[in-house]
């Protein structure tokens, strides 16, 4: 138990950020109309592509003779980029449909 408190004390800032972010995440999409569920899911999907930054760090730090790290890091960068770029482009296409619809009305 005491080690839990200790851990909390040591990572206070991180924990506050996590807790507050949870509140923000929940509040921010509080009242989304159901037609927007899919684009919102897709947009959120693109945002968690931020994991690409971890992949870049892994890749950039890999020693040039560590082939496992190089190969996996490279794969991670490709996959992460797919997530980010594909995510944002698909979301934009979906929303384009909606805005076209709006204009024609």
């Amino acid at each position: 138990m005491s080690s839990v408190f200790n851990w909390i004390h040591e990572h206070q800032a991180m924990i506050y950020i996590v807790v507050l972010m949870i509140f923000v995440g929940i509040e921010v999409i509080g009242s989304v109309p159901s037609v927007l569920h899919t684009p919102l899911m897709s947009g959120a999907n693109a945002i968690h592509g931020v994991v690409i930054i971890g992949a870049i760090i892994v890749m950039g730090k890999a020693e040039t003779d560590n082939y496992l790290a190089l190969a996996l890091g490279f794969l991670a960068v490709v996959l992460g980029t797919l997530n980010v770029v594909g995510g944002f482009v698909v979301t934009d296409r979906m929303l384009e449909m909606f805005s076209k619809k709006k204009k024609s009305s």
Partner: protein
Amino acid sequence: MEINILSFIYLLASVTFIVGLKMLSHPTTARKGNAVAAAGMTIAIFGTIFLYNDQGETLGNYGWIFGGLAIGTILGTLSAKRVKMTAMPEMVSLFNGMGGACAALISIVEFDHLMHLDGMSGLLMVLAGSAAVQGFLLIILLGLIIGSVSFAGSMVAWGKLNGSLRDFSFRGQQAFNIGLLLLILGLATYLIVALPSNALLLFYIIFGLSILYGIFFVFPIGGADMPVVISLLNSFTGVAAACGGFLYDNKVMLTGGILVGAAGTLLTILMCKAMNRSLTNVLIGAFGGNTATASAGPSQGAYKEISLSDAAVVMSYANKVMIVPGYGLAVAQAQHACHELEKILSAKGVEVSYAIHPVAGRMPGHMNVLLAEADVSYEKLLEMEQANEEFSTTDVVLILGANDVVNPAAKSDPASPIYGMPILDVELAKHVIVNKRSMKPGYAGIENDLFFRPKTSMLFGDAKKVLQDLISEVKNS
């Protein structure tokens, strides 16, 4: 210095993510919101590449990094641009899986790194005491497990949505899944606490089991529930990305990941609510396992067919026609033909509009997106409540590939898996014409009593083909 600017860039990016998501949840600002988040992501990525600095150590391997970025960008853009509107949910699932895999790969490399520590940094690590190492391990394993589950689950969801995988479940699967999960968690705890000498092997076993769990987790869930599952896995990937944030003490990964984790979870719940179901109900699979029996019920007697020319005549001479689009319309890619028919009928003085059920199709807003693609005007789309008020004054309802959303069992049969879902009350209208290819059930896998009612006539065939034929019939009539 650079690292200070990078911190500022990360802060900015975190804010764009929040603002972007906020804007995404309002119809008028949604598209701009997506662009805002994308801009934040771009500066975060390039900031990392050029400004990253970990106690003097900067990043190398620029060739590999830019190569990876280029390949990912090209593949991502092309596939996202090419994909058909109706295949969007599959695409989202696929991209989500890529993110999960990325998180898992990061964990693998970092674990490998940890196992081969030597020299100064290895020494430091040991000096820092086992508590720090254990915390580090915990985060690596969390990223691995969540990322792998998300990856495998997304791949299965993708396969189900594009039709290459069928539902599959076995007796006791629920118990098996729970056992598997407990095994994974047990092994991970053992690895962290004991750090045995065969840690690397154990790590890969955990990896494999997580992939397996992801597969078995999604497999039994009915295909119709895939959007909900994808949304859930989406929030999983968010948490996996946040683990990376802990690992590198990287605030933008942390905030972005947690943001998606929280928002995604809420969104999942909202989606379930729109279908009038609970999340557990979706996951434990009322559609999947238990109610397979329900679909085996006997046919409720005879149904009536209508010929193409008769259907054309009935509609041509109606005052008011209501079209109910469903998943079948999307599968047949018949939205343009549908719009065509609507225009011809309107030209003949018939009042035509569309009744849009919120969960028609396979993703929320599916029908709106589909009909918008065919340039159907916005005012012609009626929401469910509106439509239900109009049916009583409607002469002909034309159901195009919809099934569950017009199934009266949702109102009358408490044993039905869709009981309680609000439906379109098409029976208030004078005539109901149903177009589908056969008497097969829709995605909930249950019989539809509507097809056997006296007011209903069936018009079998592929939606696109039938619509084209109807158009020429109406033109000639």
